């Protein structure tokens, strides 16, 4: 798909309450460009608030707000109701890393196991941003958050990897920095049956201590350093996306420090922690190769 093939219409309206440079805002905008009739469920997260306040909403698509743990379940309910009532629409759960990896993991796993006909997008800004930048299981090692002021000790929980073993037809990783790739992946997901899962890299300027203008740039650095790997798992086979495949070779990757230094949340990171992050990147590539 070419950039100019992405459609003109905007259903994610200007004047929303997102921070300037918000990755998730771009993500939702791209969702509406990929899916014709989205019916979106949003659990407690930044996305709940960026819709703006009653009696207006920035969403020009049907949107159900739900409690933080319930995205996978509420989406399942809508999908089943739509089928019984003969209504047309593509049900999408749009949850943050908190509402997916932590409090929402059970409902997501349940929906996936039951084969519910939904697309579940985890927009990953790597912390509980809506409540003021507290760590989630998706926060990377070494990152500052308000609850890990010394830098997170634990490593990032890999939710996409967890979804790889749920017998799904389609699992992918994407990034708002590669918008056409994300749009293509959403369209592919929509064509599959059962639960489809996409983990979307979604920078957060305030939470990452990042200049708002660098949202797209930091995402490209994430891929170019190998830290974020774009891939698709379709009908049992994993394919590293062309954008990321160049960076399988360690020599081809930019130094990780290029990615980290753009973000204030890594300002205090030690050399040992950087080395651990680099080792984790190597392990991740190795792990994914087993599914190829």
């Amino acid at each position, binding site marked *: 798909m070419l950039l100019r093939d992405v459609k003109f219409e905007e259903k994610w309206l200007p004047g929303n309450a997102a921070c300037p440079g918000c990755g998730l805002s771009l993500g939702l905008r791209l969702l509406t460009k990929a899916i014709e009739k989205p*019916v979106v469920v949003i659990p407690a997260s930044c996305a*709940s608030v960026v819709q703006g306040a*009653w009696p207006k909403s920035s969403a020009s698509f*049907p*949107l159900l707000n739900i409690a933080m743990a319930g995205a996978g379940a509420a*989406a*399942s309910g809508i999908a089943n*109701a739509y089928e019984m009532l003969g209504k047309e629409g593509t049900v999408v759960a749009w949850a943050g890393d908190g509402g997916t990896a932590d409090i929402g993991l*059970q*409902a997501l796993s349940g929906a996936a196991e039951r084969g519910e006909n939904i697309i579940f997008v985890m927009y990953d800004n790597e912390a509980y941003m809506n409540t003021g930048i507290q760590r989630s299981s998706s926060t990377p090692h070494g990152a500052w958050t308000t609850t890990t002021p010394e830098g997170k000790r634990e490593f990032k929980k890999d939710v996409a990897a967890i979804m790889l073993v749920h017998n799904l037809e389609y699992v992918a990783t994407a990034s708002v920095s590669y918008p056409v790739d994300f749009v293509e992946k959403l369209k592919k997901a929509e064509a599959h049956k059962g639960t489809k899962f996409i983990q979307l890299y979604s920078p957060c300027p305030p939470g990452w201590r990042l200049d708002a203008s660098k949202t797209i740039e930091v995402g490209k650095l994430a891929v170019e350093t190998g830290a974020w790997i774009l891939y698709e798992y379709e009908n049992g086979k994993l394919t590293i996306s062309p954008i990321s495949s160049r960076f399988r070779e360690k020599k081809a990757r930019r130094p990780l420090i290029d990615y980290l230094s753009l973000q204030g949340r890594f300002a205090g990171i030690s050399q040992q922690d950087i080395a651990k992050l680099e080792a984790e990147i190597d392990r991740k590539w190795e792990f994914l190769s087993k599914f190829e």
Partner: protein
Amino acid sequence: MAVSVMTGSRSVATAVKLAKPEVIAAYPVTPQTEIVEDIATFIKNKELNAKFIKVDSEHSAMSALIGASSAGARTFTATASQGLMYMAEVVHWAAHARLPIVMAVATRALASPWSILNDHTDFLVQHSSGWIQIMCENNQEALDTTLQAFKIAEKREVMLPVMVGLDGFILTHTSMPVDVPDPDLIDSFLGKRMAPFALDPDNPLTFGNVVDDKYFMEMRYKMFESMQNAKRVIKEVSEAYAKLTGRSYGLVECYQCDDAEHVIVTMGAASGDAKVAASMLRKEGIKAGVLRLRVIRPFPKEDIVEALANRKTVSIVERDLSAGIGNILAHEVKSALYDAGAKVFVKSFIAGLGGRDILPEDFVNAVKSAASGKKGDEWIRLNLG
């Protein structure tokens, strides 16, 4: 008339079959399990055309129904005790979202310690959730009330979910004769759900985004008004149902109340034992009656005052505990009487927790204790020795 001998669980499941919800989502928890097992069997036998989402938890059950109901479907779930507490967050959500979900609650004691036996605390502690709550006395009422619940909930001037309570094991696992109404009659009684709003790509609305302090209170006021409307609607629906089946139910039930000087107030299956006790007391020359609380929310203040204001004593016997104050409903009854300026002697009795039986003689002793003017709450049949 088609009378079957069925358990309370089967009675509720049969009502669900007749009501034809499109989406059911439920998680098993004793003693509700047979309700959902029956539903699964009805679907397998093509007696019910519905999606039964076998969710991963009770929180997911209610979340799934919030989704399905928002999409315009008629929905049902059932739970008990721990399950009701686990889903509590979204129980409140469902009512505030104004979704006409129907839920059966097989009452059961709350842990810790574990007990699977009957107790009403689980049902009653959700009395501020915004749900309409109706407590049944027997399996016939459980079937009838579950059917009526859908109609009450879906009325435009109500649009609130309904919780139907039935005593765990005492009703759910005990067989009684139950008349099952003709499906065609119920089709004309209920019809299909006509949702005033639903998730629709052609009319894209957002459900539940932030309402700030400029209007949140007004939204709650609208709920409050709908609860008031529900008092009238429950009676209207009952009358319509009575025309079809001959059985009618009020917000409360008065048994031998007319000339009673001493009234027992209670709810659920034990009301039957209370009625036996009233007859026993009358044989002794004590003019006793029973006020069965059927509708807990909206609180039938007017009916309660009318039934109790001019008595000598009121003995409220409840199967629940709000530690730190005593019974849960007793305080609501007392405050209703206070507001009405009634000068009745009201005594509160804590009974039947964790499955302990309440026998007719317990009600008899309660009335005698109240009649003697002995003040203070009492615990019935406590075995501390």
